[in-house]
């Protein structure tokens, strides 16, 4: 949103504001002014110019977030016309860090809205649930349920259902709780780097076997908690990264010796240089920093599933 007026109430709003200060209207979905291709003031609510037909960039072409000593970077890549990945990164209570990455399914309508809704709803739900005293696994399951509802509610009659993947991590104390639906991944990077998730996809293909969406039926997330002393980092990513760099060791070698933001940017850059076929999203949460000298366990031990 550039500086302008709220489309709902007309109050003046500033660039970068997500909601209208006066009426609360969600400005992220508002038309972004004149068409970037033909200049006509005719961009429809679905993002296509009603004069020349061009799909407008959503303002998510390249996004960076830094919070709680962690970082997340999302990029459109080279082949897609918009970024259909979404991410959220929030501090929870008691030093917890919450990260969510969602990848909109390109063949579904408005996948960018689906992924953004899922990431926003899930991250907020986890923070609230943790504050209410839930454990990380219960908070994750509730977050997936609410995110699935939000995506399902975006379906409109007469079209396919919007859909997206989901992966989240809650880093709290010595524990990492990972939840996922679809083929977005979580990695442990450190001593004995490892993939923590198992894709919900037919092996060797990108055919999802589970996703969030009105056509997905009941969504049952995988939820796992790992315990580790670190040091290292938890990495969440969409397939735009792991299509090129699936190996945990290679990811660790690239990511571990910089600040999270620099590392996330570097991984995104590598995926783009490798072809940038898909949208790329990377979130990095450092783990056990400052305790490197007294590491006892390098590889995270799984506590439960």
């Amino acid at each position, binding site marked *: 949103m550039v500086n302008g007026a709220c489309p709902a109430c007309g109050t003046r709003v500033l660039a970068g504001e997500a909601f209208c200060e006066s009426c609360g209207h969600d400005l992220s979905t508002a038309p972004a002014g004149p068409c970037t*291709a*033909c200049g006509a003031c005719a961009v429809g609510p679905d993002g*296509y*110019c*009603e*004069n*020349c*037909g*061009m*799909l407008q960039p959503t303002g998510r072409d390249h996004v960076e977030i830094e919070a709680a000593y962690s970082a997340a970077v999302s990029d*459109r890549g*080279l*082949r*897609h*016309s*918009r970024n259909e990945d979404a991410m959220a990164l929030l501090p929870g209570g008691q030093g917890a860090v919450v990260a969510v990455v969602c990848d909109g399914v390109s063949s579904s309508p408005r996948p960018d809205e689906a992924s953004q809704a899922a990431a926003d709803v899930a991250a907020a739900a986890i923070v609230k649930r943790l504050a209410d005293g839930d454990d990380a696994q219960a908070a994750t399951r509730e977050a997936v349920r609410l995110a699935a509802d939000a995506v399902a509610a975006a379906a409109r*009659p*007469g*079209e396919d259902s919007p859909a997206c993947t989901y992966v989240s991590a809650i880093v709290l104390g010595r524990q990492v709780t990972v939840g996922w639906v679809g083929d977005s991944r979580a990695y442990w990077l450190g001593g004995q780097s490892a993939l923590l998730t198992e894709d919900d996809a037919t092996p060797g293909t990108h055919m999802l076997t589970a996703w969030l969406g009105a056509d997905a039926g009941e969504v049952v997330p995988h939820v796992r908690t790992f315990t580790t002393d670190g040091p290292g980092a938890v990495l969440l990513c969409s397939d735009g990264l792991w299509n090129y760099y699936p190996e945990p060791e290679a990811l660790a070698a690239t990511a571990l010796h910089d600040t999270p933001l620099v590392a996330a940017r570097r991984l995104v850059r590598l995926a783009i240089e490798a072809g940038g*076929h898909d949208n790329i999203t990377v979130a990095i949460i450092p783990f056990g920093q400052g305790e490197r000298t007294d590491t006892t366990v390098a590889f995270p031990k799984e506590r439960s599933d």
Partner: protein
Amino acid sequence: MTDFTIRVDQNKYLPAGSQEVHGIITVEASGPVRSASVAEAAEVIIIDTSGSMSYGKINDARKAAQAAVDTLRDGVHFAVISGNHQAEVIFPGSGRLAPADFHSRQAAKEAIARLRAEGGTAMGRWLRRAADLFSAHQAEHPGAIRHAILLTDGKNEHEPAPEFDANLAYSAGKFVCDCRGVGTDWVVAEVRRIGSTLLGSVMDVRRPEELEADFRAMTEAAMGKTVADIALRVWAPRAAKLNFVKQVSPALEDLTGRRTEVDALTGDYPTGAWGGETREYHVSVSVPPGNVGQEMRAALVKLVQPATGEVMASGNILAQWSDDPVQSTRINPRVAHYTGQQELASLIQEGLQARNDGDVETATARLGKARGIAERAGNEETAKLLDKVIDVDPATGTARLKRVVDKADEIALDTRSVRTVRMRKDPES
């Protein structure tokens, strides 16, 4: 109320610099079988009573018309027109449509029983007469289903071409007309023009005794329609060119020339009345060249009721430029299937034309190729009909025109060339 859904099948990826986009639009209508507005529906039965109908054909036509009258639901408004070089409303006598009940059906059937075959053929005048009846009805019942059945056995010989054109244009949009040709003296192209303009089907009826069942089935189908005057509304970007809009299932119908402008970028294409049914449309758009990664909407297709502006369903045809040849060279199977069905129909029509013109070489090439497509695409009925006009050696593929062809088979092949089959195997089911 009838519920509509639109589904778009396409490959949106274009190689850089490429401009042509194709999509197959599947429109599915579902909803209550019985319409709430049965009492407003209107049906006109038009029977050819020219001299050539004598010798038994008129007898079967009478039975067929009576069967159609029996099939009308109570309350449906109807009339019967006897057509030769003039048009006479033989029922009711009031000059307007009469609601169907026991007594009106009896009276109509008695009037039909008195039909005699004499005089010439002027189909345009029959249609104009029907159009006036429907217009009067529509003034009192806006939104009513308006349907006619036209039966003919001959050439339109007693009406000058300009008058026929004017009468047909006058009737367009006022009702949907399903046409039937009986015997071998009618001209497929002529009757097809009526069916196309009035958005109805055209079929050949080989034996007059088959008319009765056919008329009953047609009337039943008409009684199943629940919503009238639906249009396909197509938007295309300012710099784009809408190449064509065609119905491709259940039969081919080029709607491109039937556009009514809504605004500079949007036009309505008529589709007539709908019941519980599925139809498919092929839309092609040429868009300005774009950059790799850029996505655009090449067309927005809506199903609308133009009278009220109500949008029943909508779907996007998209274009996205890609430098990945795996993406951009893939042809959507449904687009490929219906492109093949259109080619098949053209080959048959051109082949039959060449055959009648004495151009054996062209006829053999076209019809032989058609036989191969029909076989591969699953057009079994068409393949059988082709076998009656051409021999193809299964081993060598060599085609040879048959020396003797039953005129009824040639008419059937021509008439049914526009009927398509759905994809044999739906990759998504």
